[in-house]
């Protein structure tokens, strides 16, 4: 249901290469287009967005908003691929319990667990752990990122 958006763009693992600065001074890395609606939810100027992930955001301090904005930037560096039914990967997203469709966009975590992009992104904003194995999502990257 509504999860079957097809994207043909190459996954953005390429964004992990090189040594781009994550400082955000230059506006940060360009977000992949399909994430825009979610990103907007966290813009500090959005005063009345009742979006689900923003539920906790109505009383957020500026500091928290910056933290979340940074986290969104980080999450967007995790690779996206398309679901390939021939592989032995999970058949359904364990967050929404809906089966993946072929060619559907899935997010790969460092532990190689996969989820629908919108399901896992909403979760990672809240907790940077894989819901299946509790592996921290690139803790090393996060530390270097947050101290900058």
């Amino acid at each position, binding site marked *: 249901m*509504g999860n079957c958006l097809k994207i043909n763009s190459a996954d953005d693992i390429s964004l992990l290469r090189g040594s781009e600065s994550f400082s955000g001074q230059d506006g940060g890395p360009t977000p992949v287009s399909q994430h825009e609606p979610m990103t907007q939810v966290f813009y500090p100027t959005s005063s009345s967005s009742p979006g*689900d992930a923003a*539920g906790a955001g109505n009383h957020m301090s500026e500091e928290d908003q910056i933290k979340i904005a940074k986290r969104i930037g980080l999450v967007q560096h995790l690779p996206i691929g398309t679901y390939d039914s021939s592989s032995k990967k999970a058949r359904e997203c364990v*967050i929404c319990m809906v089966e993946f469709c072929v060619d559907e966009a899935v997010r790969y975590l460092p532990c190689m667990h996969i989820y629908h992009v919108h399901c896992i992104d909403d*979760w990672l904003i*809240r*907790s940077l752990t894989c819901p299946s194995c509790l592996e921290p999502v690139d803790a090393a990257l996060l530390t270097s990122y947050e101290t900058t």
Partner: protein
Amino acid sequence: MSELQSSLLLKKQLAELNKNPVEGFSAGLIDENDIFRWEVLIIGPPDTLYEGGFFKAHLYFPKEYPLRPPRMKFVTEIWHPNIEKNGDVCISILHEPGDDKWGYEKASERWLPVHTVETILISVISMLADPNDESPANVDAAKEWRESYPDFKRKVARCVRKSQEECS
């Protein structure tokens, strides 16, 4: 996760639990038109003080489920160190994800979006059998459990009897 997706996920779980009931509890809705509010009946686990009891509890799911946990409240009176006197269940897997303010819970012990009604109830049933003494919600019950077990037992037995009367 939209409200529609949340309700679909809950509907799926309800259908699955109706088709393949899980031992130890039964589940339904408080109001059949509201998928976000469940009523469960927990059977007091065998070989525990709660054996023989039938404990009714309500689960209130937020619209953001499964990204955020439900609240759980016993409607039947129950005496337990990890259940507040008003029935609110205090169990770490129902605690919001995110930074650990208190520093005493591991991420694995807190809410995860893979939890379902079934996994929540399995945890609650195991909590009945094995109270967690470290972070009691009902301090009096915890103290009694530790220091005057016969009194604790007597109070639980009274709840069990009462729950049987309410169910018959």
